[in-house]
């Protein structure tokens, strides 16, 4: 047990051992998936027509929004050009299925059906279409384990969308929520604020939603505010997740280059007595 907790080489062996129980896991996963597939096939025509009409309306709405977005995107690119910062998203993404298998509920982990064969790596961000799900903590040959954002060991650097205040969101464990740690009482974070990943850890994509502030408590005997956050991602209902490859290397390169050009400047500014 101590070996499995501390030794890194044992983690590799564990990865191979995990494939022993893979048939049992698939034996549970397969019938559930088949039933889901059958349920989707057996929808009535009425239902389909209704869905179609709804989706068409939705599509129209999104098209209209897209027109606005195109303009905004160009404007944004221009502004970023001015600020000399990098593009936010980009890079490869991959859709993975979640195996319909429960692990020990104390662990806040789940299994996805992609592994070394798909070039996943430890620490990779896992998202769904609503927000950050978590990160990969173990990669096997065909399956990987994802640590959810609600795990107490998981921390995400976040930014308040309204005020750009930065903080760190740590999983709460039992309640299925997140907590912001070390936020001074005076900080402007309010109930209902959207929190997005700040990208400071170079791990989660910048600006991807993490959660919404549910409760802010100021206690006079504490130095820091107690802020609880409901995760945006649908952690319990999701069947598919998105695995992202944030363009980490290009970001680091750009940062280095930026530092190189920026470093002499403050000195010359000080010499001239002009502050930007």
């Amino acid at each position: 047990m101590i070996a499995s907790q501390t030794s890194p080489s044992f983690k590799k062996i564990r990865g191979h051992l995990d494939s022993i129980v893979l048939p049992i896991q698939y034996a549970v996963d397969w019938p559930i998936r088949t039933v889901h597939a059958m349920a989707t096939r057996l929808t009535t025509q009425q239902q389909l027509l209704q869905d179609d009409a709804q989706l068409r309306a939705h599509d129209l709405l999104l098209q209209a929004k897209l027109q606005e977005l195109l303009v905004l995107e160009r404007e944004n690119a221009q502004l970023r050009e001015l600020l000399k910062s990098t593009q936010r998203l980009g890079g490869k993404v991959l859709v993975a299925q979640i195996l319909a298998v429960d692990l020990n509920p104390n662990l806040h982990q789940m299994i996805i059906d992609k592994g070394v064969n798909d070039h996943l790596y430890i620490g990779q961000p896992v998202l769904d279409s609503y927000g950050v799900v978590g990160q990969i903590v173990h990669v096997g040959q065909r399956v990987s384990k994802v640590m959810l954002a609600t795990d107490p060991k998981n921390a995400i650097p976040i930014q308040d969308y309204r005020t750009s205040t930065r903080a760190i969101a740590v999983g709460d464990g039992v309640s299925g929520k997140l907590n912001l740690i070390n936020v001074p009482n005076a900080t402007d974070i309010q109930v209902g604020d959207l929190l997005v990943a700040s990208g400071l850890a170079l791990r989660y994509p910048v600006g991807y939603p993490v959660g919404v502030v549910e409760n802010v408590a100021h206690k006079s005997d504490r130095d820091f505010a107690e802020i609880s956050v409901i995760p945006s991602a649908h952690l319990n209902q999701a069947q598919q997740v998105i695995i992202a490859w944030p363009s980490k290397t290009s970001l680091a390169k750009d940062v280095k280059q930026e530092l190189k050009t920026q470093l002499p400047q403050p000195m010359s500014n000080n010499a001239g007595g002009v502050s930007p």
Partner: protein
Amino acid sequence: MMSQDLKTVVFIALTFLIGMLLTIVPMSQSLVWFRPEWILMLLFFWVMMTPHRVAVIGAFFVGLLADLLTGTLFGLHALLFSLTAFFVLYFYVNIHGLPIWQRALLFFGILIVYFSLQAWILSLTGVSVHFWQILAPAVISAILWPWVYLLLCDYQQRYEIY
């Protein structure tokens, strides 16, 4: 005689396989803390009924499989299952004299110790565990135990697993 041995092992292994399937079947988020400890129930039964087939060594390997299945620390279930098997074997004669409801009570005691130890070891490795969520599966398992016991007794007699 050999075929009888093989048959017994296969039939016992089959129950454990079903137990393992039940252990990882997905449940709704509100019920997830009420999952009975199926494998421990099976282990308790088989060690009590066929101690020459399933003993500490068998419990250890079943435990290793359970660890891989539930993603816990490798060896956690193995240790706890071995301890349970050892306990049952040590008090084998006493347990056999007990009526069924007292066995259920004893099993509840074992479950409490089992889940407490599990929570303790998990918390040593940095997993946050809450006490009331330990108690819930213990109570559910103890309530289900007499029914599982009767079902397994029937199974054992029908297929003559000794």
